[in-house]
């Protein structure tokens, strides 16, 4: 069982927006602005797309955004495109785990 809880799957049509939630506790997500999101296409290594809750590394589309409220972080992808179909993982620093924690992952399907 993963430390952070994500929905197993979400789906959306092209040009729509979707949001993926990532629920932790006040020992991780709720206490630190150190939530990251990773995108993983089939057969590929994960790629960092959001860090420190809301920041995007250079080269990541501005259709991708992050936010947090309480113990839940969220990833929103707007203007869905076929290339967004992938698995998404959240991660957070945790006070009781020196390495941090991952969510179980969410499969995004673009209909």
């Amino acid at each position, binding site marked *: 069982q*993963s430390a952070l809880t994500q929905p197993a799957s979400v789906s959306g049509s092209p040009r729509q927006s979707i949001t993926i939630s990532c629920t932790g506790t006040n020992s991780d997500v709720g206490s*630190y602005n*150190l939530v*990251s999101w*990773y995108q993983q296409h089939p057969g590929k*290594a*994960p*790629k*960092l797309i959001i*860090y*420190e809750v809301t920041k995007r*590394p250079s080269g990541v589309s501005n259709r991708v955004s992050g936010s947090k409220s309480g113990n839940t972080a969220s990833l929103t992808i707007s203007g869905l495109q076929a290339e967004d179909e992938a698995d998404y*993982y959240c*991660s957070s*620093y945790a006070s009781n*785990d*020196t*390495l*941090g*924690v*991952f*969510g*179980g*992952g969410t499969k995004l399907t673009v209909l």
Partner: protein
Amino acid sequence: EVRLVQSRAEVKKSGESLKISCKGSGYSFTSYWIAWVRQMPGKGLEWMGIIYPGDSNTRYSPSFQGQVTISADESISTAYLQWSSLKASDTAMYYCARPWWDLPSPLRSWGQGTLVTVSS
């Protein structure tokens, strides 16, 4: 450009030993941690452990403590993940990754992964 290149896929039998590698380039290898992350077939990402090649400071996830050994050779800018006795349940893809800055930090750069298949 930061680059992490991992060793090729391995097929092993239960009980055998294995050491896989991750060679860093494009940055000062001894100045950044290197993490190992497991992904079992069809499953999510799991932290295994992390090493600071500059002083070999190593931290393990409780789930992997005593099950694997993480090491590094700064002279050839390479980190290692090794098993002394593989189990079928070790079948997985293993990624090395480099945090963007000092811990705590997101994992900015990733290797291509090493697939380890263990048959019983």
